[in-house]
């Protein structure tokens, strides 16, 4: 187990370097960000040169990247164009997005797995077909449509919620945005769970458990569900990273000032420091989430052991 973890951690290094380098190059390819800083007029050359120097943009990219990464390892993510430290931006953005992600994952787990179990045990019945149809709709409708529709209905027409989330973004206000963010993944979780349950319901060990005379809820919980959850856990684990990075649309609709907001702002202003900084952290989240998922396998299914 220990060796496995170490090996996985070592594997993360090239992935991490590759991902950040790619992002760094992509943002750099877009050209000189200082050009956009002075509005609809050219910055005077002297000021532009000084700004470029300050942000380290006057050096070639092969020089900028190692310098940047070197700074990152000392905890210095640079400064955004509005004069704020990127770490300061992260400090305000990540807690909000993490709360949003927690709400989304919660919905995915609770609603997704319950629906999955119910439909998996009643396959072919009206409940099953009904849920399948709903998930199909949810998957095919883009998030921004669901988001805007819920915002309009619940926020403006019926007045149940505030259409935009306040800057503190407490959990209460994040329920609807979280549901919107979770919707597509939720549908996948439902379908995954259903298939997995339906498949395992005919497995020998379930038949044995039933034959032993175990109560039904115990069979489902201890035997059926536990074995069926492996693909679902994989999916949810990788989804954590995707949700955090992919919250851009949802955050924009509900005016949530989280990671998506900062990334969007950073991309528009071509602010290398902000974009690369945030993506770096997201890559780390993604990698750690993946590692945790792999380790969870062993917990769920003792047959899987890592040497």
């Amino acid at each position: 187990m220990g060796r496995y973890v170490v090996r996985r951690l070592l594997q993360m290094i090239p992935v991490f370097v590759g991902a950040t380098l790619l992002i760094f190059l992509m943002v750099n390819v877009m050209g000189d960000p200082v050009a956009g800083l002075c509005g609809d007029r050219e910055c005077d050359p002297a000021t532009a040169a000084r700004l470029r120097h300050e942000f380290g943009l006057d050096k070639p990219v092969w020089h900028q990247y190692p310098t940047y990464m070197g700074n990152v390892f000392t905890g210095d993510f640079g400064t955004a164009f509005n004069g704020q430290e990127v770490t300061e931006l992260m400090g305000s953005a990540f807690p909000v997005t993490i709360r949003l992600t927690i709400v989304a994952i919660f919905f995915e787990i609770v609603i997704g797995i319950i629906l999955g179990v119910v439909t998996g045990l009643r396959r072919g019945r009206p409940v099953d077909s009904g849920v399948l149809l709903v998930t199909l709709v949810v998957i095919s409708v883009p998030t921004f449509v669901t988001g805007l529709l819920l915002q309009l209905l619940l926020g403006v027409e019926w007045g149940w919620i505030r259409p935009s989330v306040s800057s503190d973004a407490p959990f209460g206000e994040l329920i609807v945005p979280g549901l919107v963010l979770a919707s597509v993944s939720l549908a996948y979780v439902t379908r995954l769970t259903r298939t997995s349950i339906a498949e395992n319901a005919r497995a020998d060990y379930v038949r044995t458990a039933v034959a032993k005379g175990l109560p039904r809820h115990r069979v489902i919980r201890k035997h059926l569900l536990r074995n069926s959850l492996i693909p679902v856990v994989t999916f949810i684990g990788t989804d954590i990273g995707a949700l955090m990075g992919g919250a851009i649309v949802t955050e924009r609709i509900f005016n949530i000032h989280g990671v998506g907001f900062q990334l969007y702002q950073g991309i528009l202003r071509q602010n290398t420091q902000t974009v690369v900084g945030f993506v770096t952290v997201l890559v780390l989240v993604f990698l750690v989430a993946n590692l945790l998922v792999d380790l969870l396998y062993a917990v769920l299914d003792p047959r899987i052991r890592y040497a």
Partner: protein
Amino acid sequence: MRGATHARWVAGAAAVALAATACGGGDGDSGGGSGDGGAVLSSSWGDPQNPLEPANTNEVQGGKVLEMIFRGLKRYDAETGEAKDMLAEEIETTDSRNFTITIKDGWTFSNGEKVTAKSFVDAWNYGASLKNNQKNAYFFEYIEGYDKTHPDDGSEQSADTLSGLKVVDDNTFTVRLTQKFSTFPDTLGYNAYAPLPQSFFSDHDAWLSKPVGNGPYTVESYTKGSQLSLRKWDDYPGEDKARNGGVDLKVYTDNNTAYTDLMAGNLDLVDDVPAAQLKNVRADLGDRYINTSAGIIQTLSFPYYDENWGKDGMEKVREGLSRAIDREQITDTIFQKTRTPVTDWTSPVLGAGGGYEEGLCGDACEYDPDAAKKLIEEGGGLPGGQVRITYNADTGSHRQWVDAVCNSVNNALDNDKACVGNPVGTFADYRNQITQRKMSGPFRAGWQMDYPLIQNFLQPLYYTNASSNDGKWSNAEFDRLVDEANAEEDTQRAVEKFQQAERVVRDNMAAIPLWYQNGSAGYSERLSDVSLNPFSVPVYEHIKVS
């Protein structure tokens, strides 16, 4: 002399305004009256791009805040745009080059510090000094010594202060310019010229996190990227006291969300109605929707460094293109009349006295497909048989109107491929391509005035090598007329000279003018007396909250 009459005017207007609010009964610090002068309103805001410093703020969102927490020597009238004395007691000159500025007594910053001549001189020196990286530094370029504090080649600056600025006593300072500039006093209402308290220099970081100024509002709290809370400053010495208890500026990434919040009653004021809502806005808000002219003009510029566009005879092609654009139809259908087809190169907010001349463009701005076809043929046809209009696709609704313009051109020329749009992903990249002179055809250019002067609509855009002359257009006669206009001591004659220069722009069709942009805003039922100034920014201190 001019200064003196203006001062009287302001005092008179302020007296009327004060009487009016007194009748309303709400203007007090108790906040208990029926008009409720203590109530706070909320307003949509965008995250400012640069740190909030007067000489470093060059976009509307940051400018909005500076407008609320600062008062400068002059102030532009919210209705007419005329520059009126604010802190300036008198601005005297005999030669349009040496100015003696006297400031009024009794003004303080909200931290109690007195506003003196030094507050201005220090602030201007800071703004002009290269080492402070102020993006508006060029506003000080006419002051003597600018080349020493801000060498254009980026070499080491040899002075930290402008030699043209001298403090005479607490209330007086002198300015010496490098050349005659008759309308210089009228530029002093721009935010870059605001005075700064000593705490700005002594503890800069603290000041940036909670700016201190001398305007009718003070900053109560500032959470960057989320919200800026401004409160009425009860001891504000000026006549234009706030009629509400304060303003909460809330950052919205998407103006659609702000509009939704307004509809749901969570927001009081939106000063940028999204294009997609323009169709419904009248039905949604009725007379709580404002649509007034602002000092913004949109044009198509041309790359004169490109040999295709720079050669003689192309003015006919440019005029032909101009005549192929059905401005009326585009402003009606795409912008729902929030823009007005142009008839000159300035803006109606200047007024006739300020240099706006309706109809100056004449036939050249009239839609006439036959004439357009003929002119383009006479000029040798479109270079390469096609024009590509370059624009940035990330903000505004540029895509829609560029497509419409191309459609109009294609119809007029009976050629599906005569005009196509050429989108660029981000504004930064777009600016980048412009500064690197990579444009190969017409490109979008927008101009929002810094101050309501005809000079500001012409010189920065068309003077040889001027800061916003993106197409690198150059014309000796135009330059000469602008120089003469600046040297003119009588304002009215200066304006006439500028109009002559504008005719040179017209005769060469240096840029195709498209439309004047209006400011649009919507507000909740709680508010009254909402208006937009010529910069399309709400006049916050006038707003009453019930």
